[in-house]
């Protein structure tokens, strides 16, 4: 009897002491997680792609709550969920959603098999990062697409695919969430995130070659040779030429398409525009003959 009593009392005492310790600890070291974080995380797509710039969806949820406490949700965008998800997030946090323009990945190289002749053969491991570290690639362009498809492997949304005919990746704009995985994967920094624009329309310089004009001209039929004609015709100061390369600032571009016509190498592309109506009023014979001023970039020879 005595033995049983001792056992019950001692065990009871141990239990009581443990309970007190546990209670004190749970109060003292409690982590107060904002309930809103879990709520916000719930409406996020859970792709954990990191496209928002935070480590996964939970990280982004935490950042949103913090930003809401600070006063504004500006600059916070889940590229996968887009505006609808951000509205839900804003509703949970009792804020107003800040409209951010949706973006899309753009592959800025048009060095297809016809445009950019193959000058050598690469037979190493089929991986852009390795091909880029090994040598210039299969063509003489040190800046263009290598075609091994690191971007395709990086995309979690099945939105970028290799076109076997051109050997270049193509973005499925419907599926692209602008998470930026392909931008990070491309060792030559060809892919860029650009605002989608109205009806997906935008003007893009489809080249990243920073070589001097004559060199760039030689390696590819559609390379930018930095002749500056596009910058001259642009009325909105949207085009800058830096490091032998033209760049169209999407925020300033008003989609007039004058640069597309001016480009002597067809480097500038108008994306998602309806086909042009054939011009009838211009009679070709009346056009003044083009006078070569000696700076004709297409004729530069090395």
């Amino acid at each position: 009897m005595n033995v049983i009593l001792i056992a019950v009392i001692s065990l009871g005492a141990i239990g009581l002491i443990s309970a007190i310790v546990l209670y004190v600890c749970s109060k003292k070291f409690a982590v107060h997680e904002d309930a809103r974080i879990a709520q916000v995380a719930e409406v996020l797509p859970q792709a954990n792609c990191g496209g928002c710039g935070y480590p996964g969806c939970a990280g982004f949820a935490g950042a949103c709550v913090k930003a809401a406490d600070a006063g504004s949700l500006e600059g916070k965008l889940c590229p996968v969920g887009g505006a609808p998800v951000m509205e839900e997030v804003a509703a949970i946090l009792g804020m107003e959603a800040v409209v951010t323009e949706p973006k899309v990945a753009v592959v800025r190289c048009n060095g297809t098999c016809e445009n950019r002749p193959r000058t050598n053969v690469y037979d190493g491991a089929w991986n852009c990062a390795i091909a880029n570290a090994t040598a210039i690639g299969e063509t003489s362009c040190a800046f263009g697409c290598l075609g091994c498809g690191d971007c395709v492997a990086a995309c979690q949304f099945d939105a970028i695919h290799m076109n076997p005919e051109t050997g270049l990746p193509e973005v499925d704009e419907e599926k692209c969430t602008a998470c930026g995985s392909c931008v990070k994967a491309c060792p030559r920094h060809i892919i860029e995130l650009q605002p989608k624009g109205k009806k997906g329309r935008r003007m893009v310089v489809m080249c990243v070659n920073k070589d001097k004009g004559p060199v760039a001209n030689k390696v590819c039929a559609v390379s930018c040779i930095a002749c500056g004609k596009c910058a001259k015709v642009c009325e909105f100061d949207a085009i800058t030429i830096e490091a032998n390369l033209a760049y169209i600032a999407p925020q300033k571009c008003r989609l007039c398409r004058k640069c597309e016509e001016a480009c002597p190498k067809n480097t500038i592309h108008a994306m998602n525009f309806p086909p042009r109506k054939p011009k009838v009023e211009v009679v070709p014979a009346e056009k003044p003959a083009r006078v070569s001023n000696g700076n004709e970039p297409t004729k530069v020879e090395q």
Partner: protein
Amino acid sequence: MKTFKIGGVHPAENKLSAGKAIETLGLPKQAVFPLSQHIGAPATAIVKKGDVVKVGTKIAEAGGFVSAPIFSSVSGKVNKVDTVIDASGYRKPAIYIDVEGDEWEEGIDRSQDLVTTCNLTPEQIVAKIKDAGVVGMGGACFPCHVKLCPPHGAKAECVIINAVECEPYLTADHRLMLEKPEQILVGVSLLMKAAKVEKGYIGIENNKPDAIRLLTEKSKDYSNIEIVPLKVKYPQGGEKQLVDAVINRQVPAPPAIPVSVGAIVQNVGTAYAVYEAVMKGKPLFERVVTVTGHSLSNPSNFLTRMGTPMRQLIDAAGGMPEDTAKIIGGGPMMGKALMNAEVPICKGSSGVLLMNDKEARRAKEQPCIRCAKCVGACPMGLEPFLLATLSELKDWERIEKEDVMSCIECGSCQFTCPSHRYLLDYIRYGKTTVGGIIRARNAKK
């Protein structure tokens, strides 16, 4: 006979040009000098278009301590400072010089007489080596003077001369040893004096018995230089492998370097360049280059001026064979495929190897069968299959823990792989990435 302890492979030797004496190659029409011919900061051009230069004129200044100046190998006029596709496969800045005549800078002793007496202090020798732009001639092109100034805390005990030439096909060092043995020995004693050490070793693989015999005989006058015959095994010419083979000391993992265990390793070609720089006042603008390949009609060794396009060497060796599929700068194991034959000869160009279709074709990659042959072959005791897989998975943290930075990129793993896996491609990718991560981390500190 001595050799290194772990790993190693035995590729076919194919020393086609071993019996061919060194010939002097004619001058090129135009010489091209890339500004980064060495490890470290690129040199900066100090000439401009229209400048007249002589043979031995400095045309580019060293860009820092770990860097080396570049000298013109020809006389003539600077055509332009532009870019050239160099052995790396990318366009790099370079100086173009149109050759006119062959006028040498004053102060260069062009006689063949052997000079053995040197009254310079060690510091003066190092300064002369530095000013002559001497870099490691084995291929890595590490500036010679940097190795002679050990980092704080390390003390050199001996100089080991790398005369192993373990790369198949190449015979440039072998021929140099047969034709300039006295000069090499003087160069070695200069290096020993500069490094303030008492002992020098010359490690030679025993597939060059004539060189071993000749140098052993000549070195009788030099009591502190020992000729060490080594058992043939690739990659014995790797610094760490050579230190292991010759003095039986193991260099720890990076950042340790051979001098951490008391050894300074220099190539035999470097020893010759040091002799010419110190004794003859001749900066580094010439080197012996092996031109070789099974399809080539006349594989040879040429004493070539830097900046000569490789096509000229190939033409001198019997012309480019029609079935050429790959031009490799260096040997078949560690050399790099070149973009075209116009790539200029640089300080580190030890050879030009032409491969035909059959030799050049890479076998199709098969799945790994876990045979662990690569592990047995790795001279650094790494696990190449694991490193390659981790690199493919981009697990940079783990690959760093698995010691990827110790890899010497010798290619033994890939050579021995029965599944023809592209192990080295992936390991090299992992190594460069981890190297970048480590540099970024150190910069933050």
